[in-house]
Structures are given as structure tokens and as C-alpha cells.
């Protein structure tokens, strides 16, 4: 697309016309891809064709669709549907953004793993999608669990970039930093499709910290991550910010799929702040999907959104308890200032055979401005009878009595507000065990809280 005045005038953030216009552009892009895919018959191409046909059939999600009531695709994304691969000259400089004390790291630049800028322990291998055996790639892109998700299907149909990371058991826990960066030399608009897979073999432990850096411009990131946790494995994943970081014309659709076998443990942390090092200023949509296929496993998801300006974070979560004796928890905290907004739309499904399931779903929110908003909808679908389920949402403002209490003991308005808010999110912050993450998190929080 070429950016012209005419295009801008045509755009209308809410109008149906712009949604149609956007879809017509996407359609062109998909049809071009389909033309290439149909020239050669293979299992892989068929998988991609099916995925893209699903997108064509469904169209882009609209307000009336379940789960899409509050997040829309903005008209300016039309500039982003020009998928270009840009490799900047000096990947080395991006490594400076990672904490120096950590030994192992992966640099992903404009969606491409930079092999020469990765350092991994011996029990971990990383393979680019393009180097995978066809069968393996087909398995990844053909996942049943991703089939009802338009954006995941769009990704499966178009994705070229990404990696398959395999961790085998070792005596120690591996900490790996991943930096997803987007070229700074180029201010072009960018359509990022990435697909990453984490395969945790039996009894291994992996800690991942994801950081993002994005140049200015209009971005549309449509990423998918799959984690397969084999028996006895443990995954901790910190996501600090998102690709929708540089300005409000960024949109990040992310699908996080976690599949857990017996005795496995997953911990997800997702932090979205409008200020500080890991700022997000655009529109973020997360689809988090956890499937318990084995027994005696645990999944914890923690999140803090502390937003200002027009930043929007939509968390759509489905936790499927297919098997008995699994425990899941979600603790999501939101603080919304200015025109920012959030969504918590979560459903825990407890299947008939999933006896002795334990689950907690918690979403607490504070609105700091009259223009900020949150839509929260915790749901439970329970078909088993021996289960412990707790869920709840709260929406409130800052407690004026508490503020006066703190003021009267000598704390200024700012200090009192900060202390109240830090108390409000402490349920999540106290669960952060990674030292480097904790340090960066608190530095960012303090910036956000004006401390």
C-alpha cells in the first residue's frame, strides 16, 4: 500500500466501510498467497490453503462476534498489510537492550531468528520454521486447537518466520531472554507474522523472558506461540510489553497456546504498561488457551495492565480442564487512566471427567479517569461435580478514605496514590521470582506510578 492523503480521508475508525475495506485488502493478500500455494501439491500447502480459506470464509471479526465486542481492527492497519522483510545492518546493537547478567539469549529481528546473535545452553536447540521437516511443520500449523481462531489461522496460512525451540531435561533450570526487535533504520509499515514453538521434553525446566522493541510506524503483529509441556516439565514465561509499543497505530494480536501433559507446570506473566522501558501504546489482543490433557498439572497466569492514553489491552482466555486433578489460576489486575481501556473475557471449562479440578479466576480493576473503561466477564462452564471454583471481578476507583489515611500520615497525594496502587497489584508482583525481571518491573512500575 502507498500511504496517501486519500487513504487517510477514507479511513474511519468505526465505520463498517473501513472494516470492509480492510478485509478487501487482506483478501487480496491472501489470494496472492493462495495462487502460489496451489501451484504445488503438498501436505504443508494444503494445511496453509485450509487455514487461509477459513479466514476468507469467516472474514475479520466484528463487534457482533462472541469475544470481539470491545476490540476492533483499526482502519490504519491497511498500511500494514504490506508484508516486507527488512533486515537492518547491525543486529548487535539490539543485544544491549538485554540485561547483561543473563547468559543465554535469542535475538529475533523483524521476525527472523538471528542465529549469530543467539546463545543457548547445550540441552536447547532452536530451528527456524523453514528448516523444519515438513511433517513437523504441518503438525504445528495444523493444530486442532487453533482452528477456530481467525488470526491464528491467518498466521498458520501465511507465516514464514518463526522457530521451534526444543528443551531436553537437564540438571539446571535454563533462563533464556528473547528480544523481539523491529528495525529502527526503517520507518516503513510492517505486518509481522511469527510463530514460535516451545517443546519441553519430560522433566525439563525453562524460564523465558520476552522483551520487545519496536521502531515507529504502523505495525500489525499477528503472532502465535505454542508450548507443549511433556510429563513433569515446567515453563515460566514473562512477557514484558508487546510489539504494539511505539505508538497508538500499532496492533498486536497474539495467540498463546499451552498444552500440558501429566505433572507439568506453566506460569505465565504478562505485563502491559503505557510508560517505561516496556511501554505499549497501541491495541493489544491476547488469546490465551490452556489445555490440560494430563493429570496433576498446574497453570498460573498473572497479568498487570497499567495503561494511559488510548492504550487498549484485551485478554481473552480459555482454560480447558479436559482431565481430572488439575489446578488453574488467573490473577489479572488493571489500572486504567486517560482514555485507556481493557477487556477480561475468560472462560474456564471443566469437562465431565475433570473431577477434582481447582480453579481461580480473578480480575480486579481501578479506573483513574472517567474516560477509562474496563469490560470484565469471568465465566465458568462446569460439567463435573467434584470441583472447587472461585471467580470474581471488581471495578472501582481509588479509595478516597484510604488516600486521606495515608495523606494524614505525611504521604503526598502522589506518594499515597503510588502506595495504594502498588498494594493493589502486589498480589501479582510478589509472585515474580526472576531477579532481573523483578528489577526491571519495579523500575517500570515506579515510572508509571511517578515515584
Amino acid at each position: 500500500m502507498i500511504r496517501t492523503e486519500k487513504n487517510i480521508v477514507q479511513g474511519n475508525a468505526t465505520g463498517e466501510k473501513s472494516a470492509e475495506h480492510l478485509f478487501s485488502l487482506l483478501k487480496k493478500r491472501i489470494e496472492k498467497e493462495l495462487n502460489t500455494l496451489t501451484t504445488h501439491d503438498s501436505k504443508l500447502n494444503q494445511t496453509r490453503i485450509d487455514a487461509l480459506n477459513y479466514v476468507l470464509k469467516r472474514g475479520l471479526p466484528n463487534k457482533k462476534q462472541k469475544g470481539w465486542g470491545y476490540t476492533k481492527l483499526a482502519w490504519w492497519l491497511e498500511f500494514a498489510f504490506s508484508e516486507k522483510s527488512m533486515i537492518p545492518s547491525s543486529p548487535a546493537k539490539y543485544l544491549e537492550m538485554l540485561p547483561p547478567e543473563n547468559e543465554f539469549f535469542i535475538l529475533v529481528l523483524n521476525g527472523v531468528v538471528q542465529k549469530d546473535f543467539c546463545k543457548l545452553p547445550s540441552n536447547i536447540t532452536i530451528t527456524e520454521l523453514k528448516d523444519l521437516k515438513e511433517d513437523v511443520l504441518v503438525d504445528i500449523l495444523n493444530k486442532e486447537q487453533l482452528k477456530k481462531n481467525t488470526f491464528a489461522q491467518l498466521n498458520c496460512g501465511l507465516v514464514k518466520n518463526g522457530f521451534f525451540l526444543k528443551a531436553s531435561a537437564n540438571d539446571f533450570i535454563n533462563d533464556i531472554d528473547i528480544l523481539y526487535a523491529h528495525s529502527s533504520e526503517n520507518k516503513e509499515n510492517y505486518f509481522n507474522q511469527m510463530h514460535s514453538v516451545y517443546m519441553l521434553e519430560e522433566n525439563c525446566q525453562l524460564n523465558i523472558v520476552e522483551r520487545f522493541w519496536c521502531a515507529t510506524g504502523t505495525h500489525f503483529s499477528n503472532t502465535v506461540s505454542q508450548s507443549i509441556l511433556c510429563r513433569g516439565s515446567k515453563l515460566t514465561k514473562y512477557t514484558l510489553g508487546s510489539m504494539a509499543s511505539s505508538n497508538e497505530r500499532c496492533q498486536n494480536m497474539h495467540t498463546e497456546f499451552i498444552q500440558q501433559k501429566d505433572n507439568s507446570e506453566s506460569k505465565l506473566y504478562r505485563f502491559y504498561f503505557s510508560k517505561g522501558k516496556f511501554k505499549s501504546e497501541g491495541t493489544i489482543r491476547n488469546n490465551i488457551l490452556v489445555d490440560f490433557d494430563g493429570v496433576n498439572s498446574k497453570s498460573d497466569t498473572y497479568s498487570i495492565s497499567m495503561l494511559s492514553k488510548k492504550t487498549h489491552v484485551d485478554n481473552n482466555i480459555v482454560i480447558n480442564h479436559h482431565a481430572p486433578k488439575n489446578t488453574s489460576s488467573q490473577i489479572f489486575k488493571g489500572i486504567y487512566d486517560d482514555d485507556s481501556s481493557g477487556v477480561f473475557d475468560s472462560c474456564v471449562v471443566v469437562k465431565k471427567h475433570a473431577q477434582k479440578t481447582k480453579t481461580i479466576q480473578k480480575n480486579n480493576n481501578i479506573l483513574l479517569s472517567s474516560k477509562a473503561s474496563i469490560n470484565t466477564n469471568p465465566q465458568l462452564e462446569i460439567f463435573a461435580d467434584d470441583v472447587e471454583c472461585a471467580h470474581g471481578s471488581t471495578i472501582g476507583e481509588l479509595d478516597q478514605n484510604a488516600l486521606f489515611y495515608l495523606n494524614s500520615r505525611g504521604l503526598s497525594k502522589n506518594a499515597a496514590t503510588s502506595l495504594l496502587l502498588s498494594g493493589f497489584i502486589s498480589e501479582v508482583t510478589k509472585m515474580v521470582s526472576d531477579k532481573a525481571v523483578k528489577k526491571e518491573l519495579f523500575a517500570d512500575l515506579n515510572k508509571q506510578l511517578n515515584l
Partner: protein
Amino acid sequence: MLKIKNLACTINDTPVLNGLNLNVKAGEVHAIMGPNGSGKSTLASIVAGDEKYTITNGDIELFNKSIIDLAPELRAAMGVFLSFQYPVEIPGVSVSNFIKIAVNEQRKHNGLDPMGSTELLQEMKKNLELLKMDSSFLSRYINDGFSGGEKKRNEIFQMSMLKPKLAILDETDSGLDIDALKIVANGVNSLRSSENAFIIITHYQRLLNYIKPDHVHILANGSIVKSAGPDLALELEAQGYAGIIK
């Protein structure tokens, strides 16, 4: 130290105080008694700087300086402390962290260097012991899940750390058992000096057995209707307000 002159205020356009006068000198203890809803907590909050109330007339002077336009934290830095009738619960913020911030914010206002963590902790432990409180209080969240009596003790603990010039205790005795009452009274008495003053709001004469007031005032319908020596509290206990308020 504190001069309240002809003070009138409203909350949500409802008048609460009307023409209240009170004069408290350094070294004195004043008790304020009065029926429910007469305006005692209002008076306490307004001296501490609660912006919920609108002052419609009069003035409040502390150390000969009008404070009605000062933010609550600035009054605190000048030495005002209010022990709340209903202390607020603040989940997620530990007592020790809060006290550390409060002490050092006040020191900053007064141009003093911040107190180090070790020194502060020692001071906290010393004061807890004086109040016969367990040191596990320090790591608990402020008033979160505290019993009624524990909340009141926690207020006095904070007072002992902040060492105010003017301490206003709003029904600190309500909810305390007999032993706790003595302990809290001891805590107050140990802070008493010729430099500072106390205003003690209470419904019962009992606390005044342990903390001897210099003056007892009766607040009714938004102003002080009678002031006298400590005997007034005894008189009230015997006769109730009927004989005193017309």
C-alpha cells in the same frame, strides 16, 4: 499550639460544625465528649485536613499559623497526627513499609535526612514491645484482617513512630480490652511532654482514669457547649448528656 476560632463547616451542603472554639496549649491533654453525631470525628478530620469537608467560617491555627489551606501531609509534617475512629484497611502494603515511607516523608519535609532501614526497624521493635504487640505485625498488610482492637493498637504504634506534636485520638479506646486500654494509655503517657498536646475523643470516662486530662469539653450540635476540669467526665458518666445539653 492549636487555636480553633469560630469554626463552621459543611459536608455535602449539610452543616456539621457551627462556631466551634477550642484552645490547646503545649503540654495539655484535652478530652472531648459528646453524643453520637455531634461532630467529634468531623472536628478531628478537619484539623487533620480531610478535604471532604468545606470550611464555611472561622480558622484553625497551629503554632500561630493558619493551616486551613494546607494539605494533610503538610499538617502531618508540622506534627499533627490523627488516630482514626475507623482505621482504613490497605491490602498489599505492609505496616513496616508504610511506616518507613511515612517517617521519611515527614523527615524530608522538615529538612532531615532519611532514617536508615536498620535504625527504623530497631525503633519499630522497641515501640512494639512497649505496646506489647508482636513483631509479626510489621509484615502484615495495614489493618487488613486486623481485629477492632488490633487496628486501634496499630494506630497508637504509628503514633509512637511519628512522634507528633498534636495527637488527636478519635475513640481509640473503643474496641480495646481492659489490658489493652492500659497498655495504650501507657503508650500515650510515655509520649506526653511539655512540648506536645493530646486531644482525646471518647465516650467513656474509663480511659481518662489512665490518661488524666487537663480539660474536658462537651461537643453538641456542632459546637462546644461546656468546658471544665476532669470532674466533668465523672459528672457525665453519672448523669448522661440530658442534664447538660438543653
